[in-house]
């Protein structure tokens, strides 16, 4: 208790305590004098004797301070004040150090936040480690994460190793009507055991149970976010009626705020039971089809059961369901070859966002660690130079008996001040940066796919990184500057040889690292250029696209194509629209990718496993004209309707599989489709710019069964004038056609192409940004080093100039001094960049890892920057006044 009190007194009433101590020593002195005068000394004699007896007052006080509670905190406070004063004295250095560190820490924090949210984090559910994710496929091949419903039903009812199983099926946009007022939302079908298996409890009302997942049950659960957004968090929505695509449903509960579904990056607004699909979806019931894959399945291991045991057991069930359900020879073969796999599901179901960005984020973190290392080295170099200036002070203090550790601690305090400032600033940057990067990664999403909360993990990470860098850049100068050898050389002209070598190594390392970053940036920029320059086979200029979904307006069956046909007619009259068409898959698609197998070309039937794998699309008349794809034969026309003979247009690549001219020949695709080929279209990229050209079959959209194709088709319009003018007339045309319809996913084909390259652009942007940043850091480091060297060599330069050396010769002397360091660094950097390029190889497209343009470009750029950095001090050296320089000595 008393110790606490004295700690309080010492820390809080610091000044009073100091004064008290001072008074006490003073009083002692007075008493001593008095005593000695009493013993017969003169006043002057007494004073002298008292002074001798008292000894060194400051040393006494220092010792007293040491024994007092919080003494360590006291010295820290002293160091802190000293450091702040030192840093305030050189604001340029401080600003640069804090800014460069903050940028490094902030960027690392931003990427870490994304990495944490997308890759590391576990689902906020009960015991996430016991969750498993099911997929199936041939061993060693790509697995399919969508399972058939009978498999799920069998697993759910028969498994002994799982305590529960759940199935989900996201169904995308849904029109949620509240008292007649429409609004779109993202919906998901979930099985009755979804919430119980996950162990999620409601925030309001109740969540689904098995009894909800029955035909005829029309109930819905809202996500917390949607409840807040659309319903303002009102309590009275429980039990209230809403409509989903014009069908009545009842809200029964709200999910907890922390829960965002099982797939990272794909949050939904409301959930309905799986069986509600019968009412909501046009598709045929898939409940008993053992080979129709459409649901994602997860399970929870029973306590004590291992994932291997569960996989074994589930495989028995899986094979049995498969072989029971196999009807065709193909299905029998599938049933024989396919096996089920279970993977740990603590991070949720397979996630597109995670698949796409996991490797990339890891790579980015590595890259940023390099940048951060570089920034730290840079500050270490600058701190070393600053320490040089204080060399005499340090030497004196050491000579007077200050402990080395005490001095190191003081140096570290200075670094700590820098790191703390940078960490705070970096935290702000990372909060802003993670959002911005996510926005860049998913440019077309109306809402961020993740809730990036400002949380403890991120703060801890930033703090750890800041402290780590602080130790890194603080310890090197602290230990070097206080080493006994540094002491000896303090009086030596030109600094110690060791000190110079350390400087050079640091600057060389910076040059090497920044060259690696610049090379990687170059490779990604080249990748972006190559992808953009790919000829996609269509003309991407002046094409505007948008989607509508008539299902959201409650249209069913034949009313769907009829609505779209009316919209097409309306669009044709829109001012600015030169040609109009529609298709199920966009030329650059972010939603659909349809594949099938062609089993018969003309008269030639292909054996079961030798069918041509094709991608297919369904398009309206005029599609090829709108996109500028050359077409031989005839285009689809209005007469290609449901009751007319079935026709197809094929891509040139598929045409090559036919014997002779394919036009007029028959083609068999999928299970039961025979088509007459009426045209051959030029090859174009199906769905993705980076895809290699593939065989494509086009079918007429109004000859297709609506349930297959009419999931929010895309309308393509080739326009003249501006896209925004056109948009206004499109809006008008849509509401003339059907007031309840609203266009969405409105993009020009160029924008859509850019969006599809968002990852490449993000990488190119980030690597260029950090490459440039790193290069700049290296040059500042080099500049600092050369300035220091020039200062050290001022007398020598003066002497040379006095003896008649040309200024240009002196300049060359300095630049040459820098050249060696830069060249060695650059050579090391080139070697490392080969390794780095290997690591990013999978992300490159159409560019070799040793792409000469990227390598040469980066090297030349860096060398130019280095020469510029060395030239400034060189010029200063050549302008040395010989007299001043010599007087210096």
């Amino acid at each position, binding site marked *: 208790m*008393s110790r606490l009190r004295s700690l309080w007194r010492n820390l809080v009433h610091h000044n009073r305590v100091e004064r008290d101590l001072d008074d006490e020593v003073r*009083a002692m002195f007075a008493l001593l004098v008095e005593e000695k005068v009493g013993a017969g000394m003169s006043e002057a004699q007494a004073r002298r004797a008292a002074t001798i*007896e008292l*000894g060194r007052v400051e040393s006494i006080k220092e010792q007293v301070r040491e024994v007092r509670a919080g003494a360590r905190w006291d010295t820290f406070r002293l160091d802190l004040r000293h450091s702040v004063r030192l840093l305030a004295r050189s604001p340029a250095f401080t600003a640069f150090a804090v800014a460069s560190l903050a940028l490094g820490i902030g960027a690392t924090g931003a990427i870490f936040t994304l990495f944490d949210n997308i890759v590391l984090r576990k689902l906020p559910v009960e015991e996430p480690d016991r969750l498993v994710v099911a997929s199936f496929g041939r061993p060693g091949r790509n697995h399919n994460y969508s399972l058939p419903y009978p498999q799920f039903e069998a697993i759910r009812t028969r498994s002994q190793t799982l305590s529960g199983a759940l199935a989900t099926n996201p169904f995308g946009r849904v029109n949620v009507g509240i008292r007649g007022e429409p609004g779109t939302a993202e919906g998901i079908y979930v099985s009755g055991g979804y919430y119980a298996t996950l162990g999620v409890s409601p925030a309001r009302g109740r969540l689904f149970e098995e009894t909800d997942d029955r035909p005829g049950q029309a109930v819905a659960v809202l996500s917390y976010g949607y409840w807040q957004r659309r319903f303002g968090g009102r309590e009275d929505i429980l039990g209230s009626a809403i409509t989903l695509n014009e069908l009545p449903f009842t809200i029964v509960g709200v999910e907890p705020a922390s829960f965002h579904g099982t797939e990272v990056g794909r949050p939904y607004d409301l959930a309905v039971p799986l069986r509600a699909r019968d009412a909501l979806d046009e598709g045929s019931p898939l409940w008993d089809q053992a080979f129709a894959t459409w649901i994602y399945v997860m399970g929870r291991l029973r306590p004590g059961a291992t994932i291997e045991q569960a996989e074994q057991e589930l495989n028995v069930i899986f094979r049995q369901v498969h072989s029971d359900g196999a009807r065709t020879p193909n299905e029998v073969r599938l049933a024989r070859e396919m096996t089920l796999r279970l993977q740990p599901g603590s991070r949720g179901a397979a996630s597109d966002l995670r698949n796409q960005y996991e490797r990339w984020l890891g790579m980015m973190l590595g890259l940023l660690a390099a940048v951060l290392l570089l920034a730290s080295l840079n500050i270490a170099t600058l701190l070393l130079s600053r320490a040089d200036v204080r060399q005499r002070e340090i030497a004196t203090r050491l000579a007077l008996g200050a402990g080395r550790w005490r001095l190191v601690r003081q140096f570290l305090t200075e670094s700590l001040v820098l790191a703390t400032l940078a960490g705070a600033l970096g935290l702000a940057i990372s909060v802003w940066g993670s959002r911005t990067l996510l926005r860049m990664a998913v440019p077309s999403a109306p809402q961020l796919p993740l809730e990036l909360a400002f949380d403890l993990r991120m703060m801890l990470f930033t703090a750890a990184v800041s402290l780590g860098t602080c130790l890194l850049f603080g310890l090197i100068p602290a230990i070097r500057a206080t080493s006994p050898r540094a002491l000896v050389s303090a009086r030596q002209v030109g600094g110690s040889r060791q000190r110079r070598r350390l400087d050079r190594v640091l600057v060389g390392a910076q040059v090497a690292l920044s060259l690696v970053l610049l090379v990687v940036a170059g490779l990604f920029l080249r990748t972006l250029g190559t992808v953009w320059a790919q000829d996609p086979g269509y003309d991407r200029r002046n094409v505007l696209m948008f989607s509508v979904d008539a299902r959201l307006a409650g249209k069913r069956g034949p009313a769907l194509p009829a609505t779209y046909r009316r919209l097409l007619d309306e669009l044709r009259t829109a001012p600015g629209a030169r040609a109009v068409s529609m298709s199920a898959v966009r030329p650059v698609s972010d939603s659909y990718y349809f594949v099938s197998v062609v089993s018969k070309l003309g008269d030639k039937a292909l054996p079961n496993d030798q069918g041509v794998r094709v991608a297919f699309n369904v398009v309206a008349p005029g599609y090829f004209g709108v996109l500028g794809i050359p077409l031989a034969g005839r285009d689809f026309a209005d007469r290609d309707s449901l009751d007319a003979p079935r026709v197809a247009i094929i891509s040139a690549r598929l045409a090559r599989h036919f014997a002779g001219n394919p036009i007029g020949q028959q083609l068999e695709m999928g299970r039961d489709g025979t088509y007459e080929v009426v045209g051959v279209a030029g090859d174009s990229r199906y769905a993705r710019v980076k895809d290699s050209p593939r065989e494509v079959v086009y079918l007429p959209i109004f000859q297709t069964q609506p349930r297959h194709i009419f999931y929010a088709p895309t309308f393509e319009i080739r326009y003249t004038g501006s896209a925004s003018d056109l948009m206004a007339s499109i809006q008008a045309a849509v509401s003339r056609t059907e007031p309840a319809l609203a266009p969405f996913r409105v993009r020009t084909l160029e924008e859509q192409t850019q969006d599809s390259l968002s990852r490449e652009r993000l990488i190119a942007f980030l690597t260029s940004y950090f490459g440039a940043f790193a290069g700049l850091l290296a040059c500042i480091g080099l500049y600092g080093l050369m300035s220091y060297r020039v200062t050290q060599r001022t007398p020598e330069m003066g002497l040379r100039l006095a003896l008649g050396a040309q200024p240009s010769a002196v300049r060359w002397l300095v630049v040459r001094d820098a050249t060696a360091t830069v060249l060695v660094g650059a050579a090391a950097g080139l070697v490392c960049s080969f390794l780095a390029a290997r690591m990013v190889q999978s992300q490159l497209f159409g560019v070799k890892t040793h792409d000469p343009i990227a390598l040469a470009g980066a090297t030349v750029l860096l060398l130019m920057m280095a020469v510029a950095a060395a030239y400034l001090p060189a010029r200063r050296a050549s302008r040395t006044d010989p007299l001043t320089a010599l007087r210096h000595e």
Partner: protein
Amino acid sequence: VSQKADLLQGTLDLLILKSVALGPNHGLGISRRIAQITQGTFDVKPGSLFPALHRLEERGWLASSWGESESNRRAKYYRITKTGQRQLEVEVRAWQRTVLAMGRAIDSTS
């Protein structure tokens, strides 16, 4: 002048506590009283006295307050606390044990 023994820290603490236990005193007084009760064997210099006084105060064995000396000078007076009193007893016992043991050890060798 008598021989000045090196002061072990524990010894110094014991001496200070003992001296203050005889009555509150200021720094110089404590130093002088120690010299007096040890008959000049121990002469505590301010360089060791002040840190020791503050250390004992931090531990709660001594308490201090400002007061007036006999010659009406302002001085900081130290007095022993209850825990200080207990500590003094503990140290005295420990010291007596040491003395006893040392005495026996020395006797046995002679």
